[in-house]
């Protein structure tokens, strides 16, 4: 063993401590970098040499840099982010809707509905008094305005949700592009080496995977080359060849749907913001929006039935108070179409929605979409009227098997909702149950009292609930859904925080720890330098002998 060997040992200490100080400094610099994993310099003894039968150390050898990382926690965080994203989207959509129905602040239909029936009582108290009649028309119009406002707000919210969906898809595309790029870097860097060499890129990719998880649910795995492959609904988003983007478009049903390579994959999203937005969109449509429309349809229907049986001051009868209900239809058929869909008998309407399905080109079946029950079926003749539950539908053309037609008295109800009597026609308000032009009973209020009592009657279309009761049910539904979304958002947020804490316990940078390491490696460096200095002195001594 020569003196120059000592130089090498000193040098190895200096180099190793420099590397270690680099690692420590990098840790310190990244103390606040999200997703950064702490690295640690692992020192190893250099291979010793055999001198006269003994092994003598040659200083510190290779410095290995290890990344502190727990894959299991990372998987948990991805799962949790998917739940969180879903709750986030649900809460976002429902908090809007809740404000539309916020009866706590007297927003919503409650006041207009009460006032509408109060003014009917006023008309009943003074059947042929102009101010009361005018007030009734005003409160009827106020009810119409409120309903339109609410529906408009709900539709706006649905549109915002659609916008959110397309924004999220844009983010997803940008993330998958970054992930594909990181895949390449990692596989190149790690080619032929152990995994983990590209640890900084892996940290970045993990962050991207976390972000992606908040946006949607996906399955993924890492291949032998260190690339991750991401799949959604059987379609590859990222694979070894690169990233494939998703696209969105607004379909015939008025919804924004997501497509991967031309295939509609909207239904595969269960979690993440996309899953949440799809869920909340259908929740709002099938609950708040549908129920509000049904309530308005029912108010218009019941008022009109009683109103048209009564007589105005001018002796007119058969007048509607609100615009008559209309039937909305849409075709899902290549060569068949609905040429007319009208209300045949308003009193027989159930306010449910229907689907006419063609079993084959010659036979159709009508299903009630709310109950799922078969209403009628029959043989198809082009141009013939199909009548069921108050609705008359005429289908023309040549529909094929499995073609379907949607029939709804609700879709347009609020759009068409309006008071049918103009402010100059107050005489048409039918407070009387006898023909005033014959009996002269201008003070007759019997029909008005009948309409007043509607307010307290169970309405069969509304499952025997009163108008108010049904409306309260809507508010309760919205409140419960909103509360559940808030609760699960808080829960998911908390769980995510706990997981982040766990991840931090493994991968996070502790300044105290790094400070201690700083001192440690500083001392190592100083001592290494001292070895060289001492060796130098020894050399000098020998040279000067």
């Amino acid at each position, binding site marked *: 063993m020569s003196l120059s060997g000592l130089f090498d040992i000193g040098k190895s200490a200096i180099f190793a401590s420099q590397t270690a100080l680099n690692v420590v400094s990098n840790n310190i610099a990244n*103390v*606040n970098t999200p997703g950064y994993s702490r690295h640690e310099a692992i020192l190893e003894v250099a291979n010793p040499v055999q001198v006269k039968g003994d092994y003598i150390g040659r200083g510190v050898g290779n410095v290995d840099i290890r990344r502190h990382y727990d894959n299991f926690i990372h998987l948990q965080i991805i799962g949790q982010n998917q739940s969180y994203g879903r709750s986030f989207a649900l809460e976002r959509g429902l908090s809007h809707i*809740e*404000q539309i*129905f*916020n*009866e*706590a*602040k007297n927003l919503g239909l*409650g006041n207009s509905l*009460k006032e509408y029936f*109060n003014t009917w*009582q*006023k008309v*009943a*108290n*003074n*059947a*042929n*008094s102009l101010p009361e009649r005018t007030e009734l028309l005003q409160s009827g119009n106020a009810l119409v305005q409120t309903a339109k406002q609410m529906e408009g707000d709900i539709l706006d919210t649905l549109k915002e949700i659609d916008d959110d969906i397309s924004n999220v898809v844009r983010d997803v595309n940008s993330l998958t592009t970054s992930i594909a790029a990181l895949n390449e870097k990692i596989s190149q860097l790690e080619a032929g080496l152990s995994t983990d060499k590209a640890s900084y890129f892996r940290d970045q990719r993990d962050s991207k995977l976390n972000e992606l998880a908040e946006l949607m649910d996906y399955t993924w795995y890492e291949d032998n080359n260190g690339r991750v492959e991401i799949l959604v609904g059987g379609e590859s988003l990222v694979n070894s060849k690169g990233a494939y983007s998703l696209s969105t478009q607004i379909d015939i049903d008025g919804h924004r749907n997501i497509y991967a390579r031309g295939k509609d994959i909207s239904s595969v999203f269960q979690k993440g913001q996309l899953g949440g937005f799809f869920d909340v969109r259908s929740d709002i449509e099938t609950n708040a929006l549908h129920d509000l429309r049904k309530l308005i349809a029912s108010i218009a229907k019941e008022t009109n039935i009683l109103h048209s049986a009564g007589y105005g001051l001018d002796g007119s009868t058969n007048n509607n108070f609100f615009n008559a209900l209309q039937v909305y239809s849409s075709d899902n058929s290549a060569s068949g179409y609905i040429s007319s869909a009208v209300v045949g008998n308003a009193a027989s309407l159930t306010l449910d929605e229907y689907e006419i399905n063609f079993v084959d080109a010659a036979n159709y079946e009508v299903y009630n979409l709310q109950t799922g029950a078969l209403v009628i079926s029959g043989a198809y003749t082009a141009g013939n009227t199909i009548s069921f539950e108050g609705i008359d539908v005429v289908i023309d053309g040549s529909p094929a098997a499995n073609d379907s037609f949607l029939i709804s008295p609700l879709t347009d109800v609020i759009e068409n909702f309006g008071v049918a009597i103009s402010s100059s026609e107050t005489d048409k308000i039918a407070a*009387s149950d*006898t023909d005033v032009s014959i*009996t*002269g*009973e*201008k*003070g*007759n*209020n019997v029909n008005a*009292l009948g309409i*007043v009592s509607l307010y*307290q009657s169970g309405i069969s279309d509304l499952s025997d609930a009163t108008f*108010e009761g049904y409306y*309260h049910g809507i*508010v*309760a539904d*919205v*409140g*419960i859904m*909103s*509360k559940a979304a*808030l609760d699960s958002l808080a829960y998911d947020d908390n769980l995510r*925080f706990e997981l*982040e*804490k766990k991840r*931090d*316990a*493994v991968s*996070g*940078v*502790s*300044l*105290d*720890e790094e*400070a*201690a390491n700083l*001192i440690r490696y500083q001392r190592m460096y100083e001592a290494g330098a001292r070895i060289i200095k001492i060796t130098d002195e020894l050399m000098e001594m020998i040279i000067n002998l």
Partner: protein
Amino acid sequence: MRITSFTMFNQLTRSLTENLRYMSRMSNMLATQKKINNPSDDVSGMMKVMDYKVSINELEQYKRNIDEAYEQLSYAETAMTSVTNALTRAEELANQASSGTQNADTRASMAGEVANLRDEIMSVANGKFRNKYIFSGFKNDTQSFDAGFNYQGDSGEVNVMIDRSATMAINIPGDQVYGSGATSIMGILDTLYNDLMANNQAGAQAAIEDIDSALDQIANVRADIGARLNHLDDRKINLDDRDFTLKAYLSEIEDTDIASTISEISKTEVALQSLRQSGAEVLSQSLLDFLR
């Protein structure tokens, strides 16, 4: 478990946010004076609030209806008082006229007064309230009696709702009060007038009985109206009671308990204060501070 500065920082900001959020919710309660500001704050409470509001709205409309009924019935009662006074005076006159001491001249002068009384009752019978004939039944824009004292209205009764399942008629068809034609109260007085003008002592005698039964008839109507007014009074008190109770329930569920909310806010303030202090201490220091 390793604790890093990241963990501590996150923990601190999270606790601060949570406390601030709670604080903002509490101060919102104070600002609005309401515990329930969104349906999701308390769904079942919200349902009760809505139910109470529906009931209160109903009660208040019934109270307004009662006020209206009260006005109209009171007007009818006043009318009955005038009719009673007129009839009483007419009976006096008939009594005098039936005495043998009267002669044609004195009877004729009495006849003048009877004619006035007849016209007075006629104008009461054709009385209008809010520009509607109140004794014409449903035909309230038709004069109740024509010049021949024939009833021109109908038997329609205008019912108003005074409670959920209770209605009350706020008018009395004129024929039920005054009769119709020659046998109506006005007709009786007209007959008396003609008899007096014709110096018909027996006619005056006969009129006394008719006027008596007319007075009975009016007394019955007054009793009927009085009973209705009493009933309205009772109803109103009952509605007021229920209104008050419901409003108390509503306030119990909906309104903020100011004292306890303020004390919650102070508690949260203390928590925030100590979090900030300890945060400042903990976050500002690391081992680096001691390596001089």
